């Protein structure tokens, strides 16, 4: 019996090896490659977003390469994405970044989520451009090689509150119910100031844990204070919260301030009355979305079917196109100083819209790309996202500077 067990184990292990080894053995062709590292949490908490992003980036890169790649300084390059799993841990993130830089000599690393901040300790000294997706100030603060073309919570807040103050005058009392991630923390810091700026009253904030599903007790705490606007995110947790708030008799508005999956709103269904939930999102498959994003959505859904969390996935096309355009313009694929210079000094036509770089006054470096904010509302009866207004970044940034400029 024991011997049989041993044989079985050896068999199983070798089977596992056999499935894995061919991946490792695959040889690369002698073509020049522009390597882009993706330090992703393919396993762990953010796996869905990372896997979706991986798949959509792969599709896009395949398309670029099929067209013959890109030409930089007279040399033709194919793009090669190198995915490293960090298991959504800090040490995994540092190890993966080390591997990408040291073994593959990668000059650009994309990263999703908070542990990504850990990679900057490796990328900064190595002068590798690090593309992050965290709203936290620390992500950018005095980090020369950090690039963030990510819709900042502050900017979204400003755009949405501006829209609300102009179009929905009955909103007077604002509260914050948010998950306790870095966007939530940021929101609890900035909202009081923002509300004062728009003549609203801020009546309190509560941050809840990421795994919370039952919001009745929390709502019993907040709703007696009679808010007319609940500021939250556009994630699945917030959708649940909104649904339960309506069940508890809440009659006011909701404002989601982060990007969220378009499908997250589907969870609310027709529970929230039409037009009561606003957010900085756009349905990537709809006509309201920028053309490139729409086409990408189509390609993605043709291959993988509907229902993927596409918000974060598509954000990284901004990064991909930014890198592609910037290396072309800079005429080099490995001089990151020059590429970064070109990157932050120009205005780019990225999939999500015109983007330029700012931020010297706030973070000491100008690595923040700002892009238009899409103000949309959820129409539950039709299960559709309706675009209300596209607010250009140039309209939002001055207010942002005025309120949060000095750090």
């Amino acid at each position, binding site marked *: 019996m024991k011997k049989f067990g041993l044989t079985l184990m050896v068999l199983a292990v070798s089977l596992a090896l056999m499935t894995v080894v061919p*991946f490792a053995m695959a040889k690369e062709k002698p073509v020049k490659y522009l390597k882009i590292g993706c330090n992703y949490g393919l*396993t762990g908490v953010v796996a869905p977003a990372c896997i979706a992003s991986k798949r959509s980036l792969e599709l896009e890169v395949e398309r670029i390469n099929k067209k013959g790649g890109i030409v930089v300084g007279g040399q033709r390059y194919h793009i090669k994405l190198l995915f490293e799993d960090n298991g959504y841990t800090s040490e995994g993130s540092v190890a993966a970044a080390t591997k990408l830089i040291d073994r593959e000599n990668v000059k650009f690393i994309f990263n999703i989520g908070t542990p990504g*901040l850990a990679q900057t300790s490796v990328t900064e000294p190595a002068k590798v451009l690090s593309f992050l997706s965290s709203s936290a100030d620390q992500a950018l603060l005095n980090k020369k090689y950090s690039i963030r073309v990510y819709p900042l919570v502050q900017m979204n807040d400003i755009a949405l509150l501006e829209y609300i103050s102009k179009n929905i005058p009955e909103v007077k009392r604002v509260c914050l119910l948010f998950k306790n991630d870095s966007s939530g923390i940021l929101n609890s810091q900035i909202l009081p100031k923002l509300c004062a700026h728009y003549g609203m009253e801020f009546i309190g904030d509560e941050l809840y844990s990421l795994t919370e599903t039952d919001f009745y007790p929390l709502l019993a705490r907040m709703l007696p204070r009679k808010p007319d606007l609940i500021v939250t995110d556009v994630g699945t947790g917030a959708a649940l919260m909104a649904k339960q708030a309506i069940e508890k008799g809440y009659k006011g508005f909701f404002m989601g301030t982060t990007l969220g999956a378009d499908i997250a709103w589907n969870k609310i269904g027709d529970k929230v009355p039409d037009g009561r939930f606003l957010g900085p999102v756009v349905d990537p498959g709809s006509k309201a979305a920028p053309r490139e994003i729409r086409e990408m959505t189509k390609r993605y859904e043709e291959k993988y079917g509907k229902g993927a969390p596409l918000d974060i996935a598509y954000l990284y096309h901004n990064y991909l196109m930014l890198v592609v355009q910037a290396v072309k313009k800079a005429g080099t694929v490995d001089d990151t100083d020059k590429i970064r210079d070109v990157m932050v000094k120009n205005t780019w036509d990225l999939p999500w819209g015109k983007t330029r770089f700012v931020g010297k006054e706030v973070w000491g470096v100008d690595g923040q790309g700002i892009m238009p904010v899409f103000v949309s509302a959820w129409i539950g009866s039709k299960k559709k996202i309706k675009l209300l207004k596209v607010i250009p970044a140039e309209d939002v940034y001055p207010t942002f500077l005025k309120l949060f400029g000095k750090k």
Partner: protein
Amino acid sequence: MNKNNRIKSLLLLVFTIIGFLFPVIRNDPYTLSLLLIIFVFIVAAVGFRLIYITGRLTIGQAAFMGVGAYTSALLSLNFGINPWLGLLIGGIAAGILALGIGYIVLRVGGVYFVIITLCLAEISKLFWLWWRPVTYGNSGLIDVPGFSIASFQFGINKIPYYYLSLIIMLVALFVMYRMERSRIGIALHALGQNDVLAEHLGINRTRYRVLAFTTASFFCGVVGSFYAHYIHFVHPDQFGVMPSIMIQIYGIAGGIGVFFGPIVGSFVVAGLTEFLKIAKEFQPLIYGPLLVIIMLFLPKGLIGLPQMFFKSSKK
């Protein structure tokens, strides 16, 4: 027996030498960065075993790593305390906490202790998340300073970190090994086998358990602090239930009955994890069943593997 021991110590010496010479033979930052994290987890896993031999199974050791990491990182960020001192302070903070908590919780046994320690891990994570004015919650502490000797900054050079981690591990292992081999160790083992009997023999149950718990947690604190200054980033998620469970997997998969079990376990399981990274998002599909298979056929852990071969060839 004596000969066996001699072979063992020879093997140990060889491995230690290989450990010290490794960066000279192969200066590959990535391999070094993997190894030094494995060393960190070896210390935690061996500590986990030290507590286990007294008859208490804990799934909360990452909490003490967190205490060490946060203490040291906060001190160096806010008060400019030298990270070297931070290593010690982080360890002591974790040790003192373990001493206090240990005196209370170690009286509880069996599955209840497992759950209490699980609570401990979760509480510590929730606490770091909640204490935002100081820990910045889920945004994490960034730019934690690294080590330096005089004017030499460790920077992103992995070699000094590797040696530091290796030395910390060797010291921790030496202390815990000596402890287990001394009179104290006999008492600890006695407690694990039959604590009522042990008490009759004059072994103070709680005191000895607290000793083991505090020692293990002190070293957890030290490696936690090292971790913070090496990664330069501290985040609550690294010290919750899941990392604690990983430590426990390293220990049990390696073989919790033997001192070297957790060491083997850390190397093999971490190596396996690394190897499976090729499978990208599909790795849990292989990793999960592999854990099950290891436990099904080697309930005593990987360290039982050579024995098994030995036995089956003798038959």
